[in-house]
């Protein structure tokens, strides 16, 4: 099986925000992908496609620095993310399969905790505005395990409005369990972020419904 790669080099900006050089990752002795190169600059939306098991999530986790690749290097503004972990993580927002929302705490507690963890200090009204936008007003003091799956995801989504200092967004299936309004809201926020000079790397099995040029990277399932 040959890995097909499709990506377009951005001409507009010279310095890419996030780039990967010759990445190879294997999981349980299965090579997921090898020698992948990608680079995203300010304003880029990169969409990673591929069937289940192709290694999309693994690729994203390598890009965040959670997992170290077998070979290759990930850089943020030309700096190795392993060496400059703190610099990178201050500017990163990762939204994974696991939400990072504690089920015994309520939405407000979860967000306060997450914010101080990530060095963001929003004022109380700001949090309420975001919760209002996400349709969670009145539910902010209900423990998260009493919320529906979609609402739980919305609690986690609030981060996109709160951590405004992040310029690299890495999103793993962000639309799962969201309703139509939720998807529209998130799409709008993604475009807004891109227009403000951020970049997004994401996977999704749903067709992207954003009016924005996308770069694509297709991973194939390898045996």
């Amino acid at each position, binding site marked *: 099986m040959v890995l097909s790669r499709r990506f377009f080099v951005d001409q507009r900006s010279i310095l890419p925000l996030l780039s990967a050089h010759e990445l190879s990752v294997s999981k349980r002795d299965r090579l997921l992908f090898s020698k992948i190169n990608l680079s995203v600059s300010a304003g880029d939306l990169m969409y990673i496609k591929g069937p289940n098991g192709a290694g999309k999530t693994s690729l994203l*986790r390598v890009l*965040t*620095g*959670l*997992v*170290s690749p077998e070979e290759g290097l990930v850089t943020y503004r030309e700096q190795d993310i392993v060496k400059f972990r*703190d610099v990178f*993580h*201050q500017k*990163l927002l*990762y939204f*994974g*399969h*696991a*939400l*990072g*929302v*504690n*089920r*015994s*705490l309520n939405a407000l*507690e979860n967000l*306060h*905790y*997450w914010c*101080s*963890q*990530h*060095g963001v200090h929003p004022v109380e009204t700001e949090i309420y505005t975001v919760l209002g936008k996400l349709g969670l007003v009145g539910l902010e003091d209900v*423990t998260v395990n009493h919320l529906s799956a979609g609402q739980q995801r919305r609690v986690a989504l609030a981060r996109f409005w709160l951590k405004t200092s992040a310029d690299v967004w890495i999103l793993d299936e962000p639309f799962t369990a969201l309703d139509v309004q939720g998807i529209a809201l998130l799409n709008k926020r993604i475009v807004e972020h891109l227009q403000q000079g951020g970049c997004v790397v994401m996977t999704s099995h749903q067709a992207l419904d954003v009016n924005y040029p996308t770069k694509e990277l297709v991973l194939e399932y390898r045996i």
Partner: protein
Amino acid sequence: MRDSLNAIFRRDLALAYRQRSELMQPMMFFILVISLFPLGIGPNPEILQKVGPGVIWVAAILSSLLGMERLFKDDFNDGSLEQIMLSATPLPMVVLVKVFAHWLTSIVPLLILSPLLALFLNLTEDMYWALLCTLLLGTPLLSLVGAIAVGLTLGLNRGGVLLALLLLPVFIPLLIFATAAVEAASLQLPYNAQLAIIGAMLLISLAMAPFAIAYALRVSQN
């Protein structure tokens, strides 16, 4: 950084309060083991006094093992751990705070209960003070070293048994010195030496365990 560590500490305390039934489990185990011993051995006060320190220490080790998995399991499963690792707060500091919160909520209650249990086992006052000193120095050590093993076994589905197998041999020296200290106290001998050794073990683990735990947690993400 101070702010985020503070937030973690407060969150862990709040969580412990919400999940108090889970916290009760090791505590109940501790009380049950110690209250069953006099019934099993017979009410001979001399024998009870002889086995008492050992029984309390063994029960403390086993019950701390019972509650140990709680330390990172939920955070690992719901993705909070990922989010902590992706923040700029240094991970060794975070784990140190988490271990301290865990010690405070699941082991300090045992220490508070210990005078009552010492009474069950007919310990003299000297023995009790020696026991309390060893527990105060020794149980943070249990938590710190235990957390390394918890980090290593996080990725496994049933890490509990492996956890016990990994940790029990490591805890044996602590058990020996701690019970030796109480034994010395029962003979009216000084027990500073044993305490000093336990203290030294605690200081070493305080300095090194956070880094080992942080490393184990990073490995668990692979």
